[in-house]
Structures are given as C-alpha cells and as structure tokens.
C-alpha cells in the first residue's frame, strides 16, 4: 500500500480510537438477548463498541483466572464476581446487581402448567428438566422450590439435568421433557410468555437469582468499560432488561 495513504488511514483510525473505545465483555448466556440490544443502544449513545462473548459463568471464571482479556464480566450469579474480587482479579468496589433472574416452570403444552405449580404434584408428566444444581444458579433455585413445595417424592424420579439453563430449555422446547424449570428471560418477551404454559415462580420460594457485574483488571484503565458499567444502570438499559423478564430491585 502507498505509504501516505496508509499513514492517513492509520491516523484516522487512531483518532477515532481515542474518542470511541472498545470493551470486551463476558456475558452470562441467559442474558444474551437483552445484552445484544443494550450493546447496540450503548454504541449509538456513547460511540463505544462492546464486543460480546456469551457463555457459562463458571467457564468465564476459569478463563479469566488464566488471563482471558475480558474487561467486564456480567455473571449469572453474585458469587463469581465476589470471588474474582477477593482473588484480586477484579477491581474492588465495582460490583453491582445488573439484573435479578426469575425462575419459571414451563411447558410447551398450552394447558399443562397452572399458575400455582400444582402440576408438580400430579402424574401429568414423565420427565422434568432442571439445570444441574451444582453448576447453574437456576438449577440450585429449582431444587429449593422442589424442596419448599415438598414435592421431592413425585419429582425426583422424573428429574433430568441440563448442564446449563440453555440446555434445560432445549430439553423442554423439543418436548423430550414435558416440563422444566427455565429462566423466565428465555420464554418471556414484553410482558408475556411467548409459547406454551408457565408458572412464574414467586421469588419467596428461592434465594434471589442476583446477577452481578464487575470490572475486571483488564478493563481498569479502559474508559469504554467504565462507560458500559454506567450504561447498564441507566434507564434505557433497565427498560430493556425488564422487557426480557428480569426483575430490578434497585
């Protein structure tokens, strides 16, 4: 390439880079849909670009521990960000709850799930899917609900586990399991369940599914990372988050 052209292109690019930064974000898989919208709005409003990587929080934790270049983590729980902070991998004092997940008992069949979850006491299903309680917060919450309702005897023999809430959704969505505890965000849009029947589990039946964000060491001096964390707490972002079936208690 012509050297002068190269320099001018590089110059323009560098100029742009000083104004508009870029931030690489690790995002919990259950937050995929709202985060894509938030990133778009964020870019329009601030000029900063957010590069999103979606996945399981536990995997992100292992990757961050081994030097993955994420600037921000939007976790599926509140323990992982706290642990990262304690281990000196995240910037102290930057944690906050960006969304609180809601649990739903869902079926693809239109009339199977009633609005009190009484179906769990019935014989109207052969298989019920939950996320692995050891690996996924939504799975642990589902186990709490099963315990609190006292339906272990009926439910446990029919239990199948997905390795993540995404796989749990697959099991129910392909109707290999007639029922399943999924994230409300997976089946909810704009105030309605998108298909089938569901019981939105009252939050009193399980530990709150707080999803925390944290600034990681790699993003300490990145203005775009700071801007994104601020943007997540803006009204624009909160509206998107609520539309997708998350609670916000702050």
């Amino acid at each position, binding site marked *: 390439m012509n050297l002068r052209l190269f320099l001018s292109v590089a110059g323009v690019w560098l100029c742009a880079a000083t104004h508009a930064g870029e931030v690489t974000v690790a995002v919990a898989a259950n937050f995929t849909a709202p985060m894509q919208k938030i990133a778009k709005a964020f870019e329009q409003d601030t000029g900063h670009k957010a590069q999103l990587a979606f996945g*399981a929080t*536990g*995997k992100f934790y292992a990757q961050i521990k081994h030097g993955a270049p994420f600037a921000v983590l939007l976790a599926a729980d509140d323990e992982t960000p706290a642990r990262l902070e304690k281990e000196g991998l995240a910037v102290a004092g930057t944690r906050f709850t960006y969304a609180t997940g809601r649990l739903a008992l869902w079926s693809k069949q239109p009339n199977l799930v009633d609005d009190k979850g009484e179906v769990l006491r019935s014989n109207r299903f*052969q*298989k019920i*899917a939950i996320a*692995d309680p*050891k*690996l996924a917060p939504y799975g642990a919450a589902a186990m709490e609900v099963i315990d609190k309702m006292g339906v272990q005897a009926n439910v446990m023999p029919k*239990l*199948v*586990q*997905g*390795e993540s809430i995404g*796989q749990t959704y*697959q*099991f129910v969505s*392909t*109707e*290999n*399991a007639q029922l399943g505890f999924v994230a409300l965000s997976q089946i909810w849009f704009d105030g309605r369940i998108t298909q089938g029947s569901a019981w939105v589990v009252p939050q009193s039946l399980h530990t709150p599914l707080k999803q925390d964000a944290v600034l990681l060491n790699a993003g300490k001096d990145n203005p775009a990372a700071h801007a994104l964390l601020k943007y997540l707490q803006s009204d624009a972002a909160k509206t998107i988050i609520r539309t997708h079936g998350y609670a916000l208690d702050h």
Partner: protein
Amino acid sequence: MNLSSEDVQAIALTLQLASVTTVLLLLLATPVAWWLAHTRSAWRAPVASLVALPLVLPPTVLGFYLLVALGPNGPIGQFTQWAGWGTLAFSFWGLVLGSVIYSLPFAVQPLVNAFEAMGPRPMEVAATLRANKWDAFFTVAVPLAKPGFVMAAMLSFAHTVGEFGVVLMIGGNIPDKTRVVSTQIYGHVEAMAYSQAHGLAGVMLVFSFVVLLGLSWFNRRSHQRQKVGA
C-alpha cells in the same frame, strides 16, 4: 486416586454402554461393510459418505438432531411411541442409539478394508466347492477378515467410551442411567472439583492408551502373520 461410588457407577455404566454398542455395531456394520466392499452400484459413494458423516460432524450437531428426532414430534420419537416404548431421550437405550450412530464409521471402515483386502478369489473358490453364500461367508470370509473384526470392535468400544457431546445433549445426566465417565468428569471440572476430576480423567487416559497400544501390537502381529502366510 479417589473415586467416589458415583464415579464407579459411571465407569460401570460406560462399560455397559460400550459393550452393548459394540455388539450391535458389529451386527449392523458387517452387512453394510460387505455391501460397500463389493457393490458397483451408483449408491456406493452416497452411502459411504453417509456412514462417514459422524467422523466430521461435531457431536453437538449429531446430539441436536437426535434430540429433535427422539422428541415426541420427531420421526424416531413418533415410531418409538407407536411401538409402545415411549420416548428414548434420557434413557440408556437412547444413549445406545446415539452411540451406534456416533461410532458407526469406526466399525464399518476396518471391515470394508478387510473385505476389500480379501479380494473376490476366496469366495469364488468357495463357490466352486459348492458352498452356499452364507456358508462361504461364515467359514471363509469371517476368518479371513478376523483382524478387521477385532479392529472394528476395539475402535467402536474405545470410541464409545470416549463419547461426550452426544451423551451430554441427549442424556440428562441421570445417575446409573445416563451419567457416563466423560459427563461425570465434565461435571467435576465445571464444579471445580479438580481432585475428583483427576481421578477419573487418569483412568480414562490410561484406558485409552492401553487400547491404542493393544491395537498397534495386534496390527503388527497380524501383518507379520500375513507376510509369513504369503
């Protein structure tokens, strides 16, 4: 090494799954391989490609298609329900079906090679001696292709033991029914129980190495024998 009772359960289930799969695969792969080795049909290439598909498809693709196909609205699910077996996802037999598809090329390919290496002569000679086709197949072809059968069995068994993606997607992680060694290791690693993961992973590593070592010894021996025979 520390293996919990759940780990031991997973090992037992894995061996059971691999054994059943290997037996079924040999029964299924033999006629397919025989046909592939002898046919001049235009269907040979498409069928050979279909059989080899699991080699290149990511297990998640296989697992996803299986999950859809096994469901109550999928073709396999409709058949199994009609037959009165319910649906197969999250059951041992569902895993067997998945494993048979997943390991099919590992059973078919060594057999095709063995049948092709044999050439048409032995069967022709058997025919001139008035052996009927079945007789000739079992008394002439099978003994001649024995190294191929042994290799097919060992590879199918080992490959099924190492299966992960398909099981993860259609298994549902049920202890004693669908929780095999590979998914158990995955669970340990994800739950950050690294010392437990090490125990099982070590078992898996040693097993795989021994199988491959056995295969290469066996190969050398049967090659030498062929040379001596020739």
